[in-house]
């Protein structure tokens, strides 16, 4: 209940932003706020994995892409050529298929968005389990390289397979009707509604993770981060907890991918790129690693600025620079910088070294 209360100020801010933009006639900001919210959903998931469990992942754009691409492909690619195969028949009898027409008037048989969403998220979770079991045995550089490798493989696969549209990606993704009258789409008229859907989802995710981190699981994860051997010796099943967190963060990433793809009406291979994964890691680092609120705040601010094009052609450079500067000067995140202390240090009054371990 306490956690629910701590979310309340955020809820007020969300509604405030809506009212402010509608009052100042700048409603177009809501579009970027919506997209930032979906990216932040991925980022808070990654924050739990990196900050709390201490496991770096340079492949989270891969999970985002699995979610986005699968739901996009399933809801746009016609299944008519495979109509007589068993999986398609099963889907059909379960009521998961939708007949329709494409732009050119040809008949189309696609999976309903709900079924596609579930399929995509479950697939991402299964892949996370399959990858996570061997990968999470690794540490440090090895873990970083292995997850980076996973990300690159996903990128190569979407770039090379015709089913996923190769370099063009998938467009014309239909709206995702959550409930009658409530749909995730890029329609102009649905902008406010989508803003609240995105933020609602983000708030639910946030409450979930805040509660999780305050529970037995959260304490176990912090124990693993501090010292895996010690946690192991205390009877924490480290392998299981690490895997669960990995899968949880992958599911968050996949859900973000599914929703953002429906919102944008398409997805391209750049979403699976290495730079995206690095960017997510950068944002978690800026937010202060084991700080869900920091990750959320930085996720919104940096993604919003990036989507508004504030960084121009230096977009990637800005994230690279942020990454280096934060890691050099404030490894505990930008919110941890004690301005007065820093000033004192600059003036030479306080020489004591406070740079602790990250």
């Amino acid at each position, binding site marked *: 209940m306490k956690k629910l209360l701590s979310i309340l100020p955020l809820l007020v801010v969300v509604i405030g932003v809506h009212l402010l933009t509608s009052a100042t006639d700048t409603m177009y900001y809501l579009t970027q706020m919506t997209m930032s919210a979906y990216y932040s959903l991925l980022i808070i998931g990654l924050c739990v994995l990196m900050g709390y469990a201490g496991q*770096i992942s340079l492949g989270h754009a891969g999970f985002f892409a699995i979610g986005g691409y699968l739901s996009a492909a399933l809801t746009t690619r016609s299944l008519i050529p495979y109509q007589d195969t068993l999986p398609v028949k099963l889907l059909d009898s379960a009521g998961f298929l939708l007949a329709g027409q494409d732009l050119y008037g040809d008949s189309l048989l696609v999976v309903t968005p709900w079924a596609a969403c579930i399929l995509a998220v479950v697939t991402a979770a299964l892949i996370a389990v399959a990858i996570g079991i061997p990968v999470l045995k690794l540490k440090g550089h090895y873990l970083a390289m292995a997850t980076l490798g996973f990300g690159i493989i996903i990128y190569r696969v979407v770039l*090379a397979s015709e089913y996923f549209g190769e370099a063009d990606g998938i467009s014309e993704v239909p709206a995702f009707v959550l409930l009658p009258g409530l749909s995730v789409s890029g329609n102009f008229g649905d902008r406010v509604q989508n803003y609240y859907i995105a933020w609602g989802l983000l708030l639910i995710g946030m409450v979930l993770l805040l509660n999780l981190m305050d529970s037995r699981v959260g304490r176990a994860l912090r124990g693993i981060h501090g010292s895996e051997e010690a946690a192991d010796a205390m009877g924490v099943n480290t392998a299981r907890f690490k895997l669960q967190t990995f899968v949880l963060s992958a599911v968050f990433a996949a859900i973000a991918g599914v929703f953002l793809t429906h919102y944008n009406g398409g997805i391209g291979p750049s979403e699976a790129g290495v730079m995206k994964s690095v960017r997510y890691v950068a944002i978690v680092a800026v937010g202060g690693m084991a700080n869900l609120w920091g990750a959320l705040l930085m996720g919104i601010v940096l993604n919003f600025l990036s989507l508004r094009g504030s960084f121009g052609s230096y977009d990637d450079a800005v994230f690279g620079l942020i990454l280096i500067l934060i*890691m050099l000067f404030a490894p505990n995140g930008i919110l941890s910088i004690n301005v007065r202390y820093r000033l004192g240090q600059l003036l030479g009054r306080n020489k004591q070294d406070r740079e602790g371990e990250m």
Partner: protein
Amino acid sequence: MTLELSIQYLMAGITYGSIYAIVAIGFNIIYNTTGIINFAQGEFVMFGGMIAITLLNFMPLPLAIFLAVVITMFIGALIEICFIRWLKSPSVLRMIIITIGISILSREVAVHIWGESIRSLPYFVGNEITSIPILGARISPQVMWVVLVSALMVVCLGLFFKTTSVGREMRACASNRKAATLCGINTRNMVTLSFVLSAGIGALAGCIMSPITYSQYDMGTGLAIKGFTVAILGGLGSSGGAVVAGLLLGVIEAFSVSVVPLAFQDAISIAILLGILFIRPQGLFGSKEAAGLKEY
């Protein structure tokens, strides 16, 4: 597959393999003195090639390559001094993130200087269609250059580490940093030197491979992944292992072209990387006992 075709693939594999081996040795040099995997290693290769291409407008090829290597060494030193030298026992996660940041920043600097176009140095001898017949296969003289220069680099590095006093100091720093410091070796300078050295060999590799593989601002990530695969495959820190593993990976990749589509070629080496990490993280030649003492 005919004999000629096999030889053709084999030579292509050896060419790429030599480059991978050099990148892997670059990883090893820095890893040995600092325990850091420098994710920006591939960017040194990119800088070497790109700078040489630019300098070629003003001077003859050998001088351009020489200057490019020197400038890249300077960049390597600068990176170490600015970002790494003054950190007090940073955690591994922090170092990974910093070197990734350096890699991105280098790439962005490159794209703003040279743009996204693909460039290349001219062939050192002859041109694109000059070839030497070997057992019926036709091999470009540039391939010989790559293989010979790489071999020379490996031998020179070996001699440097074995015979010179600086080389011995670097090895001392690699095996036990504290003890080396106590013996009066300036370990900090050794770390800078290791960055300079690995930047230098990376840049040279970037120059000799440029006529065949071309240079582009974003070539670094792919090379870094493959170099890392080779470094792991040969056992992290071992130069001999890196050479064998590099050639092995190059040849596997070259022959895989006849089985899987070209677009998936990168995926093959990454799959090998993942496989080796899961099964034998100590590398092909590492011993099980020694691996038991290390953390992966």
